[in-house]
């Protein structure tokens, strides 16, 4: 009960500050929207090659996951400036649960991601996306879960490094290969065998495939269970890393 209350105090505070300065939410959305508007039309003519008659059914799920990974991984940056201004220490001297301090922030990122995801799907619809409604909803939920995991990990990393200069290259060096090997823009299935084999080891590839499958209404497909399973694993790992870091003294 106290835990929920503390979480919601932190969450409300974060959300208020975001709403007061929504620039980051908009900037975060710019990248996938630009992809959608400027890269989507190019992809349309390749639709048959991708094994579909609607390129956006392949493309929008990829952009969603990209948003979930990239947007959330950078969530930790705001924590660094909070730490620098003494806010984190001020919160840590209160009896509030350390996990609540983390969770309130991560939930803000989840909500932000939900809004961005809905905007992206709606825009995709304008471009010609025609997914199953239930499928798109599940896809959005998977994205939010993945984003929550990434935001939690990002906050942990921020509190450990306490430096944008250390964190930015670290995130980029992990996120870029992961994005390329997840088949965000073009499904891995059109690639050569060796590339497909490597990408099988990348959890987010399975998650992208799962989101594509549910968008198409193909709920019984085995990839859906793999994707959801991997999402659950990543959520568990992300939250574990986050709470562990926030509970550590001296953080």
């Amino acid at each position, binding site marked *: 009960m106290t835990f929920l209350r503390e979480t919601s105090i932190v969450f409300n505070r974060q959300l208020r500050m975001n709403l007061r300065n929504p620039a980051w939410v908009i900037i975060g959305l710019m990248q996938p929207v630009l992809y959608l508007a400027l890269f989507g039309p190019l992809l349309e003519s390749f639709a048959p090659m991708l094994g579909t008659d609607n390129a956006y059914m392949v493309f929008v799920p990829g952009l969603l996951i990209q948003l979930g990974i990239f947007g959330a991984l950078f969530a930790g940056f705001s924590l660094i400036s909070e730490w620098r*201004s003494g806010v984190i*220490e001020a919160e840590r*001297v209160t009896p509030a649960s350390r996990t609540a301090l983390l969770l309130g922030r991560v939930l803000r990122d989840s909500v932000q991601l939900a809004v961005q995801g809905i905007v992206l799907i709606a825009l995709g619809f304008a471009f010609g996306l025609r997914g199953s409604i239930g499928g798109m909803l599940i896809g959005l939920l998977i994205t939010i879960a993945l984003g929550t995991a990434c935001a939690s990990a990002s906050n942990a990393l921020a509190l450990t490094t306490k430096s944008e200069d250390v964190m930015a290259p670290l995130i980029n060096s992990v996120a870029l290969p992961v994005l390329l090997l997840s088949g965000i823009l073009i499904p891995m299935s059109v690639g050569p065998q060796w590339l497909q084999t490597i990408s099988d080891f990348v959890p987010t590839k399975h998650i992208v495939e799962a989101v594509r499958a549910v968008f198409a209404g193909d709920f019984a497909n085995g990839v859906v269970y793999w994707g959801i399973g991997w999402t659950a694993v990543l959520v568990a790992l992300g939250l574990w890393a986050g709470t562990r870091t926030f509970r550590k003294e001296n953080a």
Partner: protein
Amino acid sequence: MIHARGLSRTFDTKHGREKKQVQAVQGVDLDVEAGEIVGFLGPNGAGKTTTLRMLTTLLKPTAGTATVAGFDVATQPVDVRRSIGYVSQSGSTSPEALAGEEIVDHGMLYGVGKQQAERRGRELFEQLDLDGLWTRQPRTLSGGQRRRLDIAMGLVHDPGLVFLDEPTTGLDPQARANLWTHISALRSERGSTVFLTTHYLDEADALCDRILVIDHGEIVASDTPESLKRQVAGDLIELIVLSADQVAPAAARLSALAGADAEVADRTVSVRVPRAGTELPGLLRSLDADGIALESIEVRRPTLDDVFLELTGRSLREHA
């Protein structure tokens, strides 16, 4: 209220490949009783903030134990946090938030209800001369206003024990005096205990029942401001004799009085004694009997500056 034994903290620092250990606090013993206002004095880097961070559970001691408000900092940190308020040296508000909201949220994290936190927050704003700044962003506040906002934040939940790390840095003389009044009132009206660090000796002198002096991570003195001044420095008697040939007999008299060599500079002879007030009549009579004529005589009560210099100044550091 606060009892620490052998409290120590060592930091590992890395300079490239070279590793070094900084012994920030070394074996600090301290006791603060309920209702006391205690000042923690020491030069930059003496270990004041580090000690405070250990007592407020923000930092784990590398050795030693401490109980704060009856709870062990190592094993019952949450109970300690519930019982105290802390104003850090370096600020605690987000530049982008609203001043009033920071106060209310902070109070709520202590379990105070929203209305109660807002009521107490506005009251503190008024008392600390922050009227009209409730909806301002901290980045638009002046340094001193921001400092007072930090202080309001540390007091919003009415803690029985308050730790203030250099609360008056950056405040103008009027705001400083106002804060002193406020801190005294915390004790007289709410029965709070206050533990504060400061560099300002007049502040410790005016505010504190007791002073702890820390240097190089060790407590080097602990007493009331009055008896510290008496013990360590003593009153200064400084007299100027009329003619140069009377310097030597005057110095002999003063040396005999103090039991130590008097200092001589030109026609000025000076010495420190524990209580100049009681010595002065006798001294004047004996000087008169010796036929020593004075141009002037002056008695200076020691300031805490004298104490500070003597305890933590170069001479001490050379011995250490």
